[in-house]
């Protein structure tokens, strides 16, 4: 869907009427759209249960060389199990996993050409920073000089050279994270697995580290697979995201795809906030479609792409930041107008979130960027307001 | 996950325990079905391997439950079992009454003091059990320290040595650390904000103790009581050194049958009966250990 030149607002209609997604797009890199590209990792019908509990179910997935791939989902969705199966710490009950064409079944963790950065970092407490980094190299039986050179290289890479002699318990959380990273990439793995790599860091550090990880991935040219429950982390860093739910993949796509064109209600609700309206397609008149919904007498007018045939029951998903809120009634003829009363206001500084009560006790959420410091008349509790959104703001979910 | 064969590294301790722990119990059971005899070793029948299958049949035919019959019909042994259980139950109760306030007090100290006190509780573990029990002989004997102290206060002498009371003192004294440690482990881990929350919700301290602290410490109470009760039942050294002929305990009976009377089959039968008695508390203790281990994960 995304193409060179994207980055303009969704409204801009270019390329013969095809709309382009918003988002930071590494546009030249899309091996998943290239039929001749060979995936590095292939999960084929992989399943795993623990006792009665299904962790992963009949899951198939391909990850391409050089990709930064994120597995995103709530805890217990099977993302960590999937990663641990790739590292060799769990054995799939069904299906198979191949890495660079080689079936991994029966290959123990220590013979797999992947390395993992553990959520707890798992730095060996009895070894110094440099000994930790050298650990994996020693197992390969490399000559001492080569190990020493590689350790120095890794220390420089993560800017930890001054701390080479420290023990892990003398390091801050961010420093530990760097050492864990250096240790994992020292062996030049075909693929680096990162289990919640930023989970233990505070918010500021997390943001910085996100960018560092992205730079590092480009620099090393190693394929990254990251497991996270934090959507922001996945969206910022990953080329593609697989949103997981109860052992299955709910959607795979670029960050902007899964956010702007979620495949189903689950993905729409899991990523960010969304207002969902139960509706029925009443009329399709290309490029527009009209939906009947309890919230609007006139019905909603939306773009007709991906819209099922008239008569189908659908959900209309509209993100709060794509709605506008106003005290004044919009001009006659404006589509998609909802009148209501302010129920609650949440001011977060950069944004203000309004909870608006529509007739019938229906609550919707509208977000407004606080682009200026002052307004003529602020919106207050119990004010009568009008909420509108453009026809291309909503997504029709089957 | 399917059960697999134990790995070689597990097999070594496994085999060791099978040979030196499980197999001997089977031997005890088998011997308890034999009869005492004037031979070396002093029991009959013995397996006659030279007789082949017929010899083994003869051996099986020689086994019977006579020793158990004696055990049930002899009041002395029934009494010994009952008195062992009652000694152990009382000893456990006293250890709990002394140990709980100690563990509670320790848990309320500052961390450094706490560690020091913890070490002081553990330290007696490292000093000989026999020696510590023996020290009480010097205190309790008629011309011992206790009576010297009572004499100074102008009180009448009491003869405690070789009485059930002396055994009780010895039991409580020896097993007190086993009570304090699990209690302390539970109490120390308790979040003190729970008590603040209870106070905040209007509960006075003594009520908070009974409504919050104590219920949460029950796993420690159970572990401590079992850890005291089970070995107390089979105790030998304490009744032997501090108790008189009136302080019947089953561990001592086994010892006497074995060393003094050289009646190995009967000693074995007494041991089997003791073991059967101890199975329920031991199983309870094991379950609790497993649960604690899983909760700790």
């Amino acid at each position, binding site marked *: 869907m995304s193409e060179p030149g994207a980055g303009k607002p969704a409204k801009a209609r270019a390329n013969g009427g095809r709309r382009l997604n918003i988002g930071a797009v590494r546009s030249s890199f899309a091996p998943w759209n290239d039929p001749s590209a060979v995936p590095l990792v292939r999960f084929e019908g992989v399943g795993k249960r623990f006792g009665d509990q299904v962790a992963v179910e009949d899951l198939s997935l391909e990850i391409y060389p050089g990709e930064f791939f994120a597995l995103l989902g709530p805890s217990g969705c099977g993302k960590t199990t999937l990663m641990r199966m790739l590292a060799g710490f769990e054995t799939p009950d069904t299906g198979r996993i191949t890495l660079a064409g080689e079936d991994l079944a029966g290959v123990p963790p220590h013979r797999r050409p992947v390395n993992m950065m553990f959520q707890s970092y798992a730095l060996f407490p009895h070894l110094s920073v440099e000994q930790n980094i050298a650990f994996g190299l020693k197992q390969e039986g490399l000559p001492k000089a080569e190990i020493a050179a590689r350790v120095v290289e890794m220390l420089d890479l993560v800017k930890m050279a001054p701390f080479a002699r420290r023990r892990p318990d003398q390091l801050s959380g961010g420093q530990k994270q760097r050492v864990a990273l250096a*240790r994992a990439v020292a062996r030049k793995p075909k693929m680096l697995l990162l289990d919640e790599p930023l989970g233990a860091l505070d918010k500021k550090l997390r943001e910085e580290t996100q960018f560092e990880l992205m730079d590092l991935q480009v620099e090393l040219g190693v394929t990254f697979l990251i497991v996270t429950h934090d959507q922001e982390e996945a969206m910022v860093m990953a080329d593609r995201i697989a949103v997981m739910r109860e052992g299955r993949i709910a959607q795979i796509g670029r960050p902007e795809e899964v956010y702007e064109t979620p495949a189903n209600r689950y993905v729409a609700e899991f990523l960010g906030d969304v207002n969902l309206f139960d509706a029925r397609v009443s009329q399709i008149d290309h490029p527009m479609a009209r939906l009947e919904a309890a919230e609007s007498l006139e019905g909603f007018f939306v773009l007709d792409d991906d819209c099922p045939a008239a008569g189908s029951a659908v959900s209309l998903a509209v993100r709060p930041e794509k709605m506008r809120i106003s005290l004044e009634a919009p001009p006659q003829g404006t589509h998609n107008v909802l009148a209501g009363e302010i129920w609650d206001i949440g001011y977060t500084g950069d944004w203000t979130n309004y909870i608006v009560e529509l007739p019938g006790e229906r609550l919707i959420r509208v977000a407004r960027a606080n682009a200026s410091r002052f307004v003529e008349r602020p919106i207050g509790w119990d004010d009568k307001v009008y909420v509108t959104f453009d026809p291309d703001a909503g997504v029709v979910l089957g | 996950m399917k059960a697999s*064969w134990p790995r070689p590294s597990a097999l070594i301790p496994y085999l060791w325990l099978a040979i030196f722990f499980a197999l001997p119990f089977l031997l005890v059971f088998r011997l308890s079905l034999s009869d005492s005899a004037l031979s070396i070793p002093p029991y009959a029948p013995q397996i006659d391997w030279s007789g082949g299958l017929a010899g083994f049949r003869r051996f099986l035919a020689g086994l019977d439950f006579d020793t158990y019959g004696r055990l049930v019909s002899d009041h002395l042994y029934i009494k010994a079992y009952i008195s062992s259980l009652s000694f152990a139950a009382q000893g456990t109760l006293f250890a709990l009454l002394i140990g709980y306030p100690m563990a509670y007090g320790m848990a309320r100290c500052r961390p450094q003091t706490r560690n020091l006190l913890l070490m002081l509780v553990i330290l007696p573990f490292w000093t000989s059990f026999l020696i510590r029990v023996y020290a009480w002989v010097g*205190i309790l004997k008629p011309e011992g320290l206790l009576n010297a102290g009572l004499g100074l206060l102008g009180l009448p002498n009491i003869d405690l040595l070789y009485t059930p009371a002396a055994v009780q003192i010895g039991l409580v004294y020896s097993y007190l650390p086993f009570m304090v440690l699990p209690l302390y482990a539970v109490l120390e881990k308790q979040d003190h904000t729970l008590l603040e929350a209870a106070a905040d919700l209007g509960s006075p301290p003594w009520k908070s103790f009974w409504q919050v602290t104590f219920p949460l410490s029950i796993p420690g109470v159970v572990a401590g009581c079992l850890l005291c009760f089970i070995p107390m039942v089979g105790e030998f050294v304490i009744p032997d050194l501090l108790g008189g002929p009136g302080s019947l305990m089953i*561990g001592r009976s086994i010892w006497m049958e074995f060393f003094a009377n050289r009646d190995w089959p009967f000693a074995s039968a007494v041991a089997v009966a003791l073991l059967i008695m101890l199975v329920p508390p031991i199983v309870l203790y094991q379950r609790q250990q497993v649960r604690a281990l899983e909760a700790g994960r």
Partner: protein
Amino acid sequence: MKRGASVFNLVSLTAGFAFLYLPILLLVIWSFNASRLVTVWGGFSTRWYGSLFHNEQLMGAAWVTLRVGLVSATLATVLGTLAAVALTRHGRFLGRTLFSGMSYAPLVMPEVIMGLSLLLLFVALKVDRGLLTVTLAHTTLTMAYVTVVVQSRLATFDRSLEEAAQDLGCTPARAFWSVTLPNILPAVLAGWMLAFTLSLDDLVVASFTSGPGATTLPMRIYSQVRLGVSPEINAVCTLLIGAVAVGVICWSLASKWRTAAGRQPPA
């Protein structure tokens, strides 16, 4: 529990520790008493220590005990550590329930039963009773304690460290040697110490399983104590207590020094 100790806490602690330590303290005092009577202070004297070192029976028994203790504690540490690893790391295997039962049962098993059953085993195997049989018996008796100590450490030991080692190219066995063992070493050593002192201390199992020429110190002490309080035994006890106290103090100083070294503030 942040709030300080109350009067009630202080009283119960003082009384409890007095109860625990008074008899030990008295033994030490009596060992320096010139008089044979526990209630009469005959002046400070080390005569009992002197006669102790000329008591060849006691010294011989001490030597036997020491050898049994060193060998059995070492064997028990190896076996108990292997058992602890199997119980915490090997998942489910055939006969695991039986194995864990056998691993813990010696903790609560009456010593009289253990002694009797081991004796019957040695009789059945036609092994002459002596140093070897006591050592085997003590290994079996004490390995359960090692298992418990090591297992509780392993249970809190971050498993991802072992996984990280494997991820970095170690076989499971190598991961144990190069990562797990160095980190659980304090627990393994504590287990060894516990096994050693239990072996030094044991009277009942040793009485059943030892033979002529392998009389251990507790057996010797026991037979003397049965004849009445002997000041020489007080001296032995004081020496043993002193050795333990020195050992424990060294241990705690070492661990304090270690934690202090580990707590250097990041510059």
